[in-house]
């Protein structure tokens, strides 16, 4: 069967995604979110296609993780609409929200494994809570999920005994335990060695294909994210500054987008933090900086 990603129309990127509004699994419309005095999102509109890997990238502190928490209903926007598979997330009641979350999975940056449970019990946790399955069936499912991430042999280890990469793989096995429709990955590659990163890239790609998932990948690791994403967007200053297929992003005219993608130290985002004029700053301490002054 021909993969939809190979379809020529898919390569047209956003225009196609916009046309396929019925195919979007998540849609954000004019979302505004403020934390304290700081406006994190200032009218973000985004459509995340069903069954695809969408990478959300951007510099640190731009609210990428916050965006995932808004989609998961852990935070509520000040205004705007967030819909997941047709459900208005901010408007859902507590019970409906928890029911919707059973169809979602989220891989946290730290893995967020329960430290008092073994690897096996961590993966079994959502099954024990949400299903009436007998223990022998839960055992088989857990071992299948651990096999999928290559850690069936680590079932009896405790989280403290795992490396960073293994922790994320166990967390991934726990995330897919209930066969969710959506997985959100929060910085899955951060702090990983090249082998662990390669394993995670492979797993994200394979899981998306074999399970027919919708995947949202938040990361600032540009090469890895663009290598597996069907669609990508870059967030900065509370809004989306560039979006499209990976190829479209690479050829994007925005200097800001290019600075981010190529990791240039200076550009629209300046190297220097705002400071007084150097000529007036060198050669002595200002009166307010003199100790005891």
């Amino acid at each position: 069967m021909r993969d939809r990603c190979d379809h020529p129309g898919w390569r047209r990127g956003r225009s196609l995604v916009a046309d396929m509004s019925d195919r979007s699994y998540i849609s954000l419309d004019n979302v505004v979110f403020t934390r304290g005095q700081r406006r994190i999102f200032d009218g973000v509109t985004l459509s995340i296609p069903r069954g695809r890997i969408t990478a959300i990238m951007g510099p640190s502190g731009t609210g990428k993780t916050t965006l995932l928490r808004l989609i998961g209903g852990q935070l509520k926007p000040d205004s705007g609409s967030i819909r997941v598979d047709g459900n208005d997330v901010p408007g859902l009641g507590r019970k409906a929200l928890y029911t919707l979350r059973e169809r979602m999975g989220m891989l946290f940056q730290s893995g967020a494994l329960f430290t008092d449970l073994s690897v096996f019990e961590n993966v079994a946790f959502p099954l024990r809570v949400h299903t009436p399955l007998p223990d022998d069936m839960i055992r088989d499912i857990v071992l299948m999920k651990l096999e999928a991430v290559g850690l069936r042999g680590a079932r009896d280890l405790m989280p403290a005994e795992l490396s960073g990469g293994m922790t994320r793989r166990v967390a991934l096995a726990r995330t897919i335990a209930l066969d969710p429709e959506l997985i959100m990955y929060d910085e899955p590659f951060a702090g990983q060695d090249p082998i662990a990163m390669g394993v995670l890239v492979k797993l994200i790609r394979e899981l998306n294909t074999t399970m027919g998932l919708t995947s949202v990948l938040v990361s600032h690791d540009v090469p890895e994210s663009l290598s597996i994403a069907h669609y990508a967007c870059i967030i900065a200053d509370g809004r989306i500054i560039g979006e499209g297929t990976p190829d479209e992003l690479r050829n994007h005219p925005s200097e800001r987008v290019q600075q981010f993608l190529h990791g240039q130290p200076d550009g629209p985002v300046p190297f220097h933090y705002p400071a007084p004029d150097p000529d007036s700053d060198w050669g002595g301490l200002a009166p307010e900086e003199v100790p005891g002054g």
Partner: protein
Amino acid sequence: MANGLMDRIAGLGRGGLETLASLGRASIFLWGALVGVPKPGVGLRLLLAQIYAIGVLSLAIVVVSGLFIGMVLALQGYTILSDFGSESAIGQMIALTLLRELGPVVTALLFAGRAGSALTAEIGLMKTTEQLSSMEMMGVDPLRRVIAPRLLAGFISMPVLALIFSVVGIWGGMLVGVEWLGVFEGSYWGNMQASVTFSKDVINGIIKSLVFGFVCTWIAVYQGYDCVPTSAGISSATTKTVVYSSLAVLGLDFVLTAVMFGSF
């Protein structure tokens, strides 16, 4: 001058608003924990695990403290009462002091220091390492799964610990008063039996410890749940738990004593 005064007034107002907001959050938090109880089978297993962690593991400190406090009470009581030739009343003095006051109060203070601080640190660390968030995203409400069993376990454990504290204290008092200082054993137990009433002294002591157990556990779990998710945040929350719990216990003890035993 005027600006400084205005700043102070504004600071007071801000502090008051923050305190009110915190109380509101704590109440909503408590409601969320109380309305939802896990499935009976799962809930019982979680509850028993927490009763073990909160109650059983606090037994050692409670028993040792109770023993020494009973022994000190006997020593002090004997010194004072023997001046009036009333050393035979030492049993009733120890029993009433422990059952009405020291049992519930000291147990609650020990509880806040041992179990309360541990609860705050545990929940705070779960928050810092995103375990609570991951639970939410798995469709599991942490208020029901994590907080409710701990709250209930503290409520159940405290009166039992307070009773054990009082019993051990009375026994410690007997060791010093009767075995060491030579008070007649019959008068030690007899005066105690004659003066202690179950409905007034024992039940009121249990009511006090139920209130203290609820308040101390509520403070502990809330501080952990509401802490800033950093190591400094957990440290601050743990300190707050011990300080707030101790002050709440001492303040509530005065109010409860006035209501239970005050003759006005």
